[in-house]
């Protein structure tokens, strides 16, 4: 990559392998994936008449979504990585255009429903979904910012899909059990902070 900051293009397999690793290897693979098809941003501007910022947002969301899917092994490799990512990008751009045309875009960013919710039975899911919709997400987000650096870092690693045994190395804990206990303590702390204001 050239230029001092330019890294060489990696193969699809090299990127996928890097994303399955942890720590800096994974971070580098994420950045490589972003760089790999960054010219899609221009496509977003040219093909979908998006502004540069909108196209960048669509492309960034595409890459984040692709990373999650690759890590979860949802990418089956039936098409090339490029084709698959462009399909996600296309859908994001179309969504964005639709939201823009209905004036919803600037005020409302829908939150992706976590895949975990789908593990529940239909009846249990509808109860939980209703409660989730009634919660104050902005306040929860604010409390997560205030919970303390160590706890926040731990919860973000968890949200990034790192298993406890890998967090042991990344955050220098003694064992995976200690990570789990600490993570649940942090969640409890967050819950207390959140409840004190609701």
């Amino acid at each position, binding site marked *: 990559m050239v*230029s001092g*900051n*330019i890294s060489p293009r990696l193969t699809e397999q090299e990127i996928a392998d890097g994303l399955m690793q942890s720590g800096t290897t994974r971070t580098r693979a*994420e*950045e490589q994936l*972003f*760089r790999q098809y*960054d010219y899609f*941003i221009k496509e977003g501007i040219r093909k979908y008449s998006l502004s540069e910022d909108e196209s*960048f*947002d669509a492309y*960034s*969301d595409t*890459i*984040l979504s692709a990373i999650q899917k690759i890590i979860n092994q949802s990418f089956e490799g039936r098409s090339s990585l490029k084709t698959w990512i462009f399909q996600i990008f296309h859908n994001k751009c179309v969504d964005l255009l639709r939201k823009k045309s209905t004036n919803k875009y600037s005020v409302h960013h829908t*939150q*992706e429903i*976590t895949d*975990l*919710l789908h*593990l*529940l*039975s239909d*009846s*249990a899911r509808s*109860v*939980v979904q209703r*409660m*989730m919709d009634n*919660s104050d*997400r902005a306040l*929860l*987000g604010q409390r*997560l*910012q205030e919970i303390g650096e160590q706890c926040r870092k731990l*919860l*973000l690693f*968890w*949200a*990034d899909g790192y298993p406890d045994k890998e967090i042991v190395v990344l955050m220098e804990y003694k064992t995976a059990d200690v990570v*789990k206990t600490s*993570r*649940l*303590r942090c*969640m*409890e702390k*967050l*819950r207390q902070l*959140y409840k004190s204001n609701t």
Partner: protein
Amino acid sequence: MSEHLGYIDSYFNKELSPEECRIFELRIEQDPAFAEEVAFYLNTLNEAKAQLAVQKKERFREIYQEIRPSQHRGLVRRFWPYVSAAAVTIALVFRFVFFSPSMSPIKLANEYIQSDLAIISTDMGMGDSIEIGKKLYNEGKFEDAQKQFERIILADSLESSAKEYAGIVSLRLEQYDKAIQYFVELENTRLKINPGKFYHALTLMKRNGPGDLQEAKKLLHAVEEENLKFKDIAKKWLNKWPEE
């Protein structure tokens, strides 16, 4: 700490048996406080993911900001041959319309040094001591190259090509007196094609001290008249030499 969070965590980590899962789901339907904790668990995960996405998007934006100028540079690079050709044409037309073809001797010298003395062609094996000096020169290690050529001259004071290269590298190091000394020695060497006077003139043009240009002009005339090496370049330069 709530016992429920551990239980909820086990469910979503798929650590419970099918029967335990069924009981878990049933409890959600029957126990609102428990259902509220499940909702909190998932909301926390969602919120952490959202904050993570913001962090990553910030990182991507930094990368994109780095990439953007390079893309512009890439565009310039792609069209550079056309742009430069157009610029050269315009410059030539402008020059012939508005200016005389004369050029300052120092400019002629600089252009020659940049284009013709950027590298010394190598033609022998790496073991040859002159070739080692050339290699050092081509790598921009001028001091080392100078030492190498001077070692060769010390060992054999009649080695003319070492003198030529020692003079050139001294010129590149802006050690003009030393360069002139080597080129004068070269001038006084019996060679079929002698570049000594030409390089001597070049060094004077580059140094541009009192009386240097007059002396350089005389040397260039001598190169042309005596049919010495680089006489064509000497002739061209004399044609461009500004009126005194």
